[in-house]
């Protein structure tokens, strides 16, 4: 983080943007920290959820959009469930990811973007998620060939992996329409 934050440079437009996408009022946050205290991914984050909330309040756009945290967030909604001011923090994190992708900013964690891209293209092309191609593609492109390979036998045993290609969903046209309507997820 920057050592000195210039408080005159509050990016009001950014605050509005986050608020209108997330439909949350960030000034509601009174910094109790319960979101951070409850977050299962906090240990992977460079900036904790309550600090992200505060950085939005003081309009520090770059600080936030350059962070790992917005890509580490699991969207598990624990923070939202715990917040005493009833802020949907998960939606705020979603808004931050949307803004980042809209502006085509680099994703600080390369493999997170890779993972999102593979998932989305699978849904776009097949209308559903196919676990086997997903795992193969992800391992291949991330260069971690044997990543999680040890899990394969047990997943297989439970019938979670299907090598035979399943049929596409019937309403693939509608799914494509969803994609074309929300251009941001396409990039």
């Amino acid at each position, binding site marked *: 983080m920057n050592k000195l934050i210039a408080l005159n440079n509050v990016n009001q437009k950014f605050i509005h943007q986050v608020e209108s996408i997330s439909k949350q009022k960030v000034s509601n946050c*009174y*910094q*109790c*920290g*319960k979101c*951070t*205290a*409850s*977050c299962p991914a*906090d*240990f992977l984050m460079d*900036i*904790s959820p*309550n*600090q992200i909330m505060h950085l939005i309040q003081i309009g520090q756009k770059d600080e936030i959009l350059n962070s790992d945290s917005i890509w580490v967030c699991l969207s598990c909604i624990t923070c939202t469930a*715990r*917040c*005493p*001011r*009833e802020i949907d923090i998960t939606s705020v994190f979603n808004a931050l990811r949307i803004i980042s992708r809209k502006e085509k900013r680099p994703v600080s964690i390369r493999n997170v973007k890779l993972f999102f891209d593979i998932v989305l293209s699978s849904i776009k092309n097949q209308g559903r998620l196919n676990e086997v191609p997903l795992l193969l593609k992800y391992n291949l492109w991330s260069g971690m060939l044997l990543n999680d390979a040890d899990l394969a036998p047990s997943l297989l045993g439970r019938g979670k992996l299907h090598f035979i290609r399943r049929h596409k969903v019937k309403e693939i046209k509608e799914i494509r329409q969803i994609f074309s309507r929300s251009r941001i997820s396409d990039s």
Partner: protein
Amino acid sequence: MRIGFFICHCGSNIAGTVDVVQVAEYVSKLPNVVHSVHLMYTCSQPGQKEIVDAIKEKRLTRIVIAACSPKMHEVTFRRAIERTGLNPYLFEMANIREHCSWIHDDRELATQKAIELVEMTIAKVARHESLFSNKVDVNKKVLIIGGGIAGIQAALDMADGGFEVVLVEREPTIGGKMAQLDNTFPTIDCSSCILTPKMVDAGQHEKIKLITYAEIESVSGYVGNFEVKVHKKPPYVNYEKCIGCGICERKCPAKAPNRFNLGIGEGKAIYIPFPQAVPKVATITKEHCIYFKSLAEGKLNRCKICQKVCHVSAVDFEIKDEYINEKVGAIITAVGFDLFNHSVYQEYGGGRYPDVISSLQYERLLSASGPTEGKIKRPSDGKEPETVVFISCVGSRDDSVGRPYCSGICCMYMAKQAILTKDHLPESKTFIFYIDIRAGSKAYEEFVKRAQVEAGAQYIRGRVAKIYPENGGLIVRGVDTLLGQQVEVMADLVVLANGVISSRGSNELAQKLRIPYDQYGFLSEGHPKLKPVETNTAGIFLAGACQGPKDIPSSVAQGSATAGKVQGLLSKDQLETSPLVALVECSRCIGCFKCLKVCPYNAIERITLKDGSLVASVIPTVCQGCGLCVATCPSASITLKGFTDDQLIAEVEALCR
């Protein structure tokens, strides 16, 4: 008819939005208006003088003042008018501040609206008549509901001032929450040492009639003359005879949860709440008594051991509900508060972990007269805790549980409990999870510092996300927002700072008293700044935590303040009643008595006319002028003085011109 009109600038409050000069000019051209001026502050001394002088010089016979709400200054102006010899009811206010300038921005439209409001008022005042108030005798007795520290203080001050007091307390003893506390902030003096003398004084004072184990059944009447019915629940012990020796409690075989110790430790079906109780008498809880239980099941177990062992034959299973009627001139409500029930916090165990306790339970553990005789032993296994964690704002400042307000006292009692923990267990370690530290009163900040520096309490800034049991202890997972990191403590005991909520049943009581309460159930004061102990109902007052969270110093201050107010009221021999009351035109009354049913003040009676017909009649000293009967009467035979049909229609016509 000579109407005088005065419009107030109220600094820029009105004149900033309404063109007062234009309004005055417009009004000066209306029929019957002989004087129309604008004044900077009509309520000020020079403002009032201008009005008085104008009435005399111009021989005015009707007055209209366009200013703030009549709630604010109607009485002020009536008094000024009365000084000139003019009847004070030949006057009317037009509210062009709250109803106009404060709520509009457009100067032109606001001025137009002000003119319309004033025209209506002038049309109405032309139809005013002189009205005269009645006088009623004042009953000099006061009823105080709730015998916590606030109620006790008010009772003692009233009694010392020579007034008769009836003190009604729901529990068998007075004392309230303060009796359950160990030591008190910000001085760490023993709660019972400073409370007991006051309780004893209240119990022995010749002017104070104590009715404990009782509640208010109904209230009727009005300021100066209330009639109250008190319901005394049957304690199955004759309080007059009982000497409080406690042998019954020792011999009683029926175990019961100890209410005074909030479920920590055991109690008996017959019990004396605590050694310093006033009155110190025993009470039977029916649902735990073997005799009563067997009776309910249709069997007959003649346990009655308490009755057998009592030396003074005080135990009496035949005692029935008793109703006591009291006539009083004023009522003070001091029903205190309750604690937020933390079981809604599933992440803190939802009340299932025995070693996650409420702050008040902890007071009982600390107290020398408590269930552990002042040894801190945790409920699950009686072990002395090495690490105690305090969590602030449980049920406070939390929208998700519907409690957005700060409870005001918990920051301070947490600091106190941390200091006391160190006192009891010098080897212990305490952590306080807080969001903000609210220590705004005299010597409070220094007290918190004492907890931090002298008692070594570790303050961690952040809310706790969850508590879960592990290896016989409790893991507390929170955050240190100053570091931006999650933190974890292994605790032996967790004490929650439960928030302050309105006292159970206080809303039902408020309805009986016809006083308003806020969305959280706290009773509403008359004005947040200027009438802190009055209510909107004349003759009914508030003291202590029933009005909102309060510590002991503020509760005592309010108790005394209320007593001062009530003494002012009751020192008058007679009170003037408002002449703005309803009047039945008996020749038109058809005797259906629908009015009698709707009147909330029981102000309507049946009278027999000379011709033998039965009609309704309003008792003018009881009527509060609410107008319900007027709207209800099918034969239109009731009018409300000061608000006659004629006057209201004139107003509407003025508006439609």
